[in-house]
């Protein structure tokens, strides 16, 4: 395809992303305004004298018309100002910078595990459709999708931590390692690796195993099911008969020809699953006391800390958008028909 076509489609994609982003900002802003929570009271408290309440209201520009408030909100956003969290008294951006890497680390390990297990399992189930292995895979996936994640998490802790003692308990690291490694990326494993601190790295990995496995199991079930159904469709294609008629090995027919045709669609599934993990690990983070964005969001919500809630929502939404955009670009790169 021509270069100008590429540029045009890229332009169309980025403009649709910008529109979505604007909608996201508008909705978060409006939610903040319609919530029955008075941001002034949240800051000064119930018993503040009326003149203080009035002064803070003016300071926060809450006396101005709604469009003006929105304009101020957007202007602040463009300056990277998400406001200040009442609860932690840090800027929301600093808070997110602190909590988000924990979620990212957890979600990344989970999606890697889920992909490495789920994709081959889905391919295997499709190739052996109707045979015993297919039924076993189906039961495993059904369990992963239907057992609530809090139950899985608690069971995992009960068995591997409380009973067997194979895994360390909750949290991201043992107390003795806290502050050992200078935070650079916020990802404990990466920071420990950069610092060359193997004990801290081992400790961080050990803490990751249980929560990441619980999250991965759930995602793996979905990835396996999608891979299986994509593969079944591909394996019935005429080009599979062609590939076999060429005398290719079964492995080559399955991976090069059938899987090669579903890889593109699988990328989208993986990207959306990853995005889902980044935003939706609230339950897992709570059970494993994982200091991530999900926990930050929950605690902020319970404390009516609206700046924190809106900031975190916006960041999650933007992550989702970014991953979607990434999947879209990869799609164009991998599928010759999309170019």
């Amino acid at each position: 395809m021509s270069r100008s076509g590429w540029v045009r489609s890229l332009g169309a994609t980025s403009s649709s992303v910008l529109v979505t982003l604007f909608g996201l900002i508008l909705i978060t802003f409006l939610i903040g305004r319609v919530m029955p929570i008075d941001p002034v009271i949240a800051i000064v408290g119930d018993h503040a004298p009326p003149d203080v309440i009035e002064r803070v209201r003016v300071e926060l520009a809450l006396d101005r018309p709604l469009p003006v408030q929105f304009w101020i909100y957007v202007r602040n956003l463009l300056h990277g100002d998400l406001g200040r969290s009442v609860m932690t008294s840090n800027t929301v951006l600093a808070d997110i910078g602190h909590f988000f890497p924990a979620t990212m680390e957890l979600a990344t390990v989970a999606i890697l595990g889920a992909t490495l297990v789920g994709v081959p399992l889905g391919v295997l189930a499709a190739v052996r459709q109707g045979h015993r292995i297919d039924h076993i895979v189906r039961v495993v996936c059904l369990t992963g999708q239907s057992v609530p994640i809090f139950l899985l998490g608690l069971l995992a802790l009960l068995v591997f931590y409380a009973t067997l003692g194979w895994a360390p308990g909750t949290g991201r690291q043992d107390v003795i390692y806290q502050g050992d490694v200078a935070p650079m990326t916020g990802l404990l494993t990466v920071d420990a690796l950069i610092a060359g601190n193997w004990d801290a790295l081992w400790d961080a990995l050990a803490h990751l195993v249980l929560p990441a496995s619980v999250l991965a199991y759930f995602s793996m079930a979905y990835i396996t099911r999608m891979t299986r159904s994509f593969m079944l469709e591909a394996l019935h294609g005429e080009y599979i008969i062609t590939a076999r008629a060429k005398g290719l090995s079964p492995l080559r027919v399955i991976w090069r020809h059938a899987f090669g045709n579903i890889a593109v669609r699988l990328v989208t599934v993986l990207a959306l699953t990853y995005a889902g993990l980044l935003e939706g690990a609230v339950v897992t983070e709570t059970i494993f006391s994982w200091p991530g964005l999900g926990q930050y969001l929950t605690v902020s919500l319970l404390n009516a800390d609206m700046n924190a809630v809106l900031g975190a929502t916006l960041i999650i939404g933007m992550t989702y958008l970014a991953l979607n955009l990434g999947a879209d670009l990869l799609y164009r790169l991998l599928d010759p028909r999309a170019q």
Partner: protein
Amino acid sequence: MLVEIDNLSIAFPTPTGLSHAVRGVSLRIGAQKLGIVGESGSGKSLTARSLLRLLPESAKLTADRLTFDGIDILRANERTMRDIRGKRAGLILQDPKYALNPVMTAGDQIAEAWRAHKKGSRREAMQKAVDLLDQVRIRDPARVARAYPHELSGGMGQRVMIAMMLAPDPEMLIADEPTSALDATVQADILRLIEDLVSRRGMALVLISHDLPLVSHFCDDVVVMYAGRIVERLRAADLSRAEHPYTRGLLNCLPALSRPQPSLPVMVRDPAWLA
């Protein structure tokens, strides 16, 4: 004889028992051009594909004898079959739109067929692919080798398919309705190309079609199938002397400028043909 088939049956399990799609077919195929004619569901494709054992997984294949150059296809293992598929017998499918892998370039697909059976580097295989595209008379072979199937016309796609199946120099070519999905103007070109390549390389050809005049024009011998059985076999030149009422019926239904009819006759099927 390259292929010997005795009493071949292909059946599929259905809720009410086995349903026979091919019944008691016996054939000998040597270095000739054989046409298999029949309507949809007559079992012509299944018969041809059973030579490569490329039937749907649920198909039940039985025969007193099914051999390719003396190799027992019924009992051969997968490894042996892979040495027949592509290397000794190629299969051309109906519609290149579906039969070519949409995410691989034409050149890659041809090179892959060559490398599956010949020893050689990737570079060599690609060179060979371009060479083959030239042999199937594609004008700009280097450019087409880099093209994806969706960038090719139907006729070009079918040429790519032919090049791919010729790559390992097979002794036999099975063409399963190779022109049915193509424009009428392109059909003749593709058939002439197949005929030319087959006679130049001394290959055996099995041409499957529902087009009786076309098959009789391009083949030495014609086999007519109906409801899973062979109802008639004759020299292509003797087609006008066909005896079976089904074959006669087919010939009568053809419009001809030399023999104008106000309305074409409709085939009257005799249930006795099924027996």
